[in-house]
């Protein structure tokens, strides 16, 4: 059983389009995250939700909108895609405290 699963694995789209990435975790964790990994492999947090409430919102363009319908799901919708949005997006989950992050296998987004 995949603990943190995200779909799709690959996403190729043109500038200006709107796209969504879905994430689900079956670990019973309370906190979910979206991370962006650029071409240099830097991992940068974008958002974090705890029990469906937004707790971290880094300096991310408002074209990015996360949605958490329940604590097992955290989706990411991106409007008006730009070339600079091309990256690998990782969903992750954890429990509170010093619980480790569990990452999904990423969604590689390519904007042409």
């Amino acid at each position, binding site marked *: 059983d995949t603990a943190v699963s995200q779909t799709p694995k690959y996403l190729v789209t043109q500038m200006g389009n709107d796209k969504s990435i879905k994430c689900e975790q079956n670990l019973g964790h309370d906190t979910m995250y979206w991370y962006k990994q650029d071409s*240099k492999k*830097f991992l940068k947090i974008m958002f974090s939700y705890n029990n469906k409430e937004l707790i971290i919102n880094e300096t991310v363009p408002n074209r990015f909108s996360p949605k958490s319908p329940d604590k097992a799901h955290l989706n990411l919708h991106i409007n008006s895609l730009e070339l600079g949005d091309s990256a690998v997006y*990782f969903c992750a989950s954890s429990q509170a405290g*010093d619980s480790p*992050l569990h990452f999904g*296998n990423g969604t590689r987004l390519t904007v042409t």
Partner: protein
Amino acid sequence: QQQVKQSPQSLIVQKGGISIINCAYENTAFDYFPWYQQFPGKGPALLIAIRPDVSEKKEGRFTISFNKSAKQFSLHIMDSQPGDSATYFCAALSTSGTYKYIFGTGTRLKVLA
């Protein structure tokens, strides 16, 4: 103050050698320091973690050394194997904060056969 500085950026080690990756932090509120291993096409996965009340933690061939006064910690991979070739990230977390992990910039390790 929120940064975690990681070095080296890349590392090439012979099979059987010792790989050492270093990280330094500024924020004294950090109290949990994990290391993550990432293979191509996969998400990072927890390798080993330490809290600042101990100076060393060992799990198999992987050891974290922690120097609280210097605000530094390092990952040592003993008897490095080609299968260890991956990108390694250190991270830091304040467990009394908003669950915001701060990641280092990553080290690409290649172990030559």
